[in-house]
């Protein structure tokens, strides 16, 4: 099956947050309480209830001011560390090219949150009694996509900055667009995501370097996950030691789990937010 992908063309994005709300609307994700801290960006981060958001960046180069917008969410890597570390196969590659997520299968281990080089998946405490957590992330609207509909964010995008289609065709289109932008005075115009991590499912046409958008210039498959896949997992079949190692990794992972990137919303606080 031909691989589908999403193209985000930053040179067309107007930062309207249509995609951000389309995602919440389709998935019924509640709005959280946020605060104005001197930015157009809100919510301030991805979270269990925010799978797509728009980020804002001011960038000045050669006297030209650019206000850069990025529609951000899971990039659906080919070499998807989250899929590789997921012990329950809740995260899977789908033949359409997206990384699907089945919440029922998720056991809340949180490995995906640690393995993702982009820091996309987030955990939430799904059951405060058992401590059961669940991960979440953008799935390219897997129910829409596998039923012939385009993702909600793509459908809504007013200027057509988001597109959905065959990945190869989108890459060709993106490359042509980069040339067009260069001719129009955007010397730094570039395509991001064609080769990164085996090729991303979310491709980006940028008018400034990736770092200016807060994107890693050279995202790497995490050594933790690489070690997991090549070393730990085969070894894991040897029953003895598996749990020990798992807990060791857990310990490392947890140590890294700075609370600012593992956001959890306890259900009991939902009521306040609604009000």
């Amino acid at each position, binding site marked *: 099956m031909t691989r589908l992908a999403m193209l985000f063309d930053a*040179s*067309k994005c*107007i930062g*309207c*947050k*249509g995609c951000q*709300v*389309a995602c*919440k*609307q*389709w*998935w019924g994700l509640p*709005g959280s*309480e946020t605060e*104005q*801290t*001197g930015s157009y960006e*809100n*919510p301030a981060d991805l979270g269990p209830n925010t799978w797509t958001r728009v980020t804002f960046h*001011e960038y*000045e180069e050669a006297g030209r*001011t*650019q*206000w*850069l*917008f990025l529609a951000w969410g899971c990039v659906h890597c080919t070499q998807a560390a989250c899929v*590789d570390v997921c*012990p329950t*196969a809740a*995260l*899977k*590659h*789908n*033949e359409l090219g997206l990384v*699907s997520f089945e919440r029922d299968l998720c*056991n*809340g*281990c*949180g490995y995906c949150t640690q393995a993702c080089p982009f820091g996309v998946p987030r955990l939430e*405490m799904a059951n405060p009694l058992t*401590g*059961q957590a669940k991960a979440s992330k953008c799935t390219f609207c897997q*129910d829409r996509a*596998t039923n012939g509909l385009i993702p909600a964010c793509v*459908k*809504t995008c*007013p*200027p*057509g900055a988001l597109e959905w289609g065959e990945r190869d065709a989108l890459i060709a289109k993106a490359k042509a667009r980069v040339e067009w932008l260069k001719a129009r005075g955007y010397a730094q115009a570039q395509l991001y995501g064609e080769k990164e991590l085996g090729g991303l499912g979310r491709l980006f046409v940028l008018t400034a370097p990736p770092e200016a958008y807060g994107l890693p210039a050279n995202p790497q498959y995490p050594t933790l996950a690489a070690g997991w896949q090549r070393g*730990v997992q085969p070894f894991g*079949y040897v029953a003895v030691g598996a749990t020990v190692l*798992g*807990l060791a990794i*857990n310990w490392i*992972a*947890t140590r890294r789990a700075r*609370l600012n990137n593992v956001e*959890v*919303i306890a259900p009991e606080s939902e009521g306040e*937010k609604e009000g």
Partner: protein
Amino acid sequence: MKKVSRRDFLKATGLVAGGLLLPTGSAAAASAATFPLHKRVGEATSICPYCGVGCGVLLATNAEGHIINTEGDPDNPINRGTLCSKAQSITQLTTDPKRLRKVLYRAPNSDKWEEKSWDWAMAEIAKRVKATRDATFRVKDGDVTVNRTEGIGWLGGAANNTEDCYVAAKFARALGIVYLEHQARICHSSTVGALAPTFGRGAMTNHWVDLKNSDVILIMGSNAAENHPISFRWITKAMEERGAKLIVADPRFTRSASKADLYVPFRSGTDIAFIGGLINYTIQNKLYNEEYVKAYTNALTLISPDYKGPDELDGLFSGYNQASRSYNNASWQYQKETVKAKDASGNEVEVTVPKQAASLDDPQCVFALLKKHFSRYTPEVVERICGTPKDQFLKVAELYCSTGAPDKSGTIMYAMGTTQHTVGSQNIRAYAILQLLLGNIGVPGGGVNALRGESNVQGSTDMALLYHDLPGYLGLPTNKQPDYKTYIAKFDKTSYWSNGPRFFNSLMKAWFGDKATKENDYAFDYIPKRSGDYSVIPMFEAMYKGTLKGLFVMGQNPFVSGPNARFERKAFENLDWLVVMELFDTETSSFWRAPGVDPKTVKTEVFLLPAADAIEKTGSVVNSGRTIQWRTQVATPPGEAKNDIWIIDRMMRAIKAAYQGSTDPKDRPILDLVWDYGDPPQAELVAREINGYALEDVKDANGNVLVAKGAVIPSFATIASAANPDAIACGSWIYGGYWAPADDGTGTIMPAAKRRGQKDPGGVGTHPYWAWTWPANRHTVYNRASARPDGKPWSEAKKLIWWDEAQKKWTGYDVPDFAPTKAPDAKANPAGVGLAAQSGTDAFIMKADGKAWLFAPSGMNEGPFPEHYEPLESPIANVLSKTQINPVIKVFDTDRGKDVGDNVGTVDQFPIVCTTFRLTEHWQSGAMTRYLPWQSEAQPGMFVEISKELAAEKGIKNGDLIEVSSARGKIRAVAMVTSRWKPYIIDGKKVHHIGMPWHFGWQGIARGASANELTPHVGDGNTTIPEYKAFLVDVKKV
């Protein structure tokens, strides 16, 4: 918010250590899973209730009739399935638990709401109306019968359906209300005030989809990416597919600017200097379309030799009276000459016509005066006034003025940044003049495009919820028009307005039925006459002084949106009673319990009536491009909420009952008012009345029946041509045809406004079978000018309509805005009536001379040409003259010097220029967004944008709390320090400029200080639109 502890994390993950033994997924082994749709997409269609783009939405509802999904309607040609964030929040708008579900009443001096029944509320409201009306009703003003009350007012609503607005206008006028106003006054009244005198109509000239046909798009005084996001669908298309260039001129670098090929800054309030510079550049470099200018504008018309301009009179035009702060425009008139012609009966008569120059070089012709007037607007002057560096200005000039070529078109998109100034109307006149010189009016991709900000502000304006008007722009009689005869004499005899008297008569028939007869001058005295300015600012001055005692508010939130908000809030406390029809309990409905207000001291009785939102009722909505789209009810209103027609219907029934048996002549308009829309009232029956229907068989001169009794009229042309026009009742002539049966392009017949036909002749984006566009389904008005005088298109690239010599008629991709069979070489008959007096090249059929007015001999209070004046509060002395501010504006001064009053600041106290703006996440005063979780999350509160340089001077860091003060008040907000603002050099002096959104108030989820606590109580010289967009402030860190 609960954080995950390491312990929790280990506990959770430890439980699944066994997972180590499970196989993992990989790209090589991709799953072929499909996932069932977790909810329905929906198939019910409607139109978004937020801005004026008019996007189509698809909705799904559950068994309770609540919305469960909202997404774009792919068949709607305006948005083709796309939507901004607000539209998608329709899901929350119709289901939010904070929606009003019961009638609420607040007794005098009470500190709480009480739940009441509808019946109780209607009877009580009727009692208040009757008492106030009877106590304040004025039959005479001097000798003139005026039949009005200045004791009751009405505000709102631009988000209401057209049919709601129509019954509201009818309701208000029957009571004799003259303080009849709504959002259009404060958002685009200056648009109508400028475009109607210039072109003949006051609306956006082109339409949203037409933006794709443009070669150069100038966004100025608008932040379309933010406030009309779908416009960027068409702008992006123009840029991508035809290589169009985008220019954004704005005081700050905006979301729109982020997409521009060329962004240039200019100081808020200096549009005339900037555009005047472009006009001068166009003329000096001969970039104008000479053939167009000569044929379609009054460029060649000779002006009175007594005329003198600001270059000679230090900023004033001839005829100024200092004492009355007004002009006598006698010296601005056309020179006339007498010619002989044959009238309709074939008799030779002498008539006077405007005298024409032989060439554009004649020093007394309009073009020569224009050239002289704008020669003062050099790039150097532009730089001094606007702070736009000369080299950047010249880049704009070179690019934009290239659209004077016949195969190019340029469009100007503007909104509140242009309109909300003391020179608002003249700002827009400047745009119109530039566009006429470049031949950009009437052509695809051209136009002066007023971007409307509320979903139906065009419809509410058309229905005349404005003190000075009647539906269809007929104009409310004034005390200078004491009787019917003098009133109808105001309509031009030599334009399509020659039918004005018939249109007025049909309106009176719609309102008063058989009580309006030829014999009684169509019940002329049943409607009130105005004697002055009853617009929003004077309305609040009257409330403040206590003369206006009762107020209806339908979907408007002046507590947040009114200028000098502290003053206007205090005015509310002087009301005896207030009736609010709303979705949520807004700052306005709860003004008596606002922070800092002691309810015990507020006497006002408040009736808060829960209203249905746009998706929960039926009716039409008119977008910025004048397209009337019908919405059928999709969702169920919450609780006891009712649609606005029902509410107004019940109020009128109760008022009629209260007056039953009265023999006082002043009560006849109420008792004789035709009021029968069914029970419950049907929007479709209101639509029928607005469209116009036959009271008797309507016949032509030969006795043929044109429209059978009871049927709707197919077009306003029926009123113009009928032998017995008094057989027609028509609520708004310009809507004649919107409710008439029409083909949707597939042979299916339905009311025109309901059509969903997809055909698009020529691919120019007209979509003539989609809904219905006023007037007469013309999408680009003045489109006669899209063809050369000889009837051929200016170019293949820009063809829209043209003369078909074989068929002897105009044809093309749009309905001709012209007599359909009048040949290009048709001669005018100066003795003819109406369009007979105009020639085959008179492209502006609503103007008495058939020409667009570069020079306005009448219709503009402060002069025939735009002249730069500084805002009321300005950092510099006017560079061009000693006339500092618009010389005809009224500067209100109630309680000046007091803490709350009409105070004016000076640059020594308040050195920083400030403007206000909107955010894409919120809508207007926030009354339909600040209550919604998704929109509030995305933009949670108030902030002020300041430059890095100003921040450094004041020791302010991003995110700091700062205080902004003006002569009217002080507010606190978060500082947003940004490189998108830069200090200006104005007339050699460094001036800081800041801006802030104005959406916020104390109710809802997204709360914050209201920017309008800072804005001044001063209006434009023509329409009194408040000057929200340029005032002086100071800033300090808290």
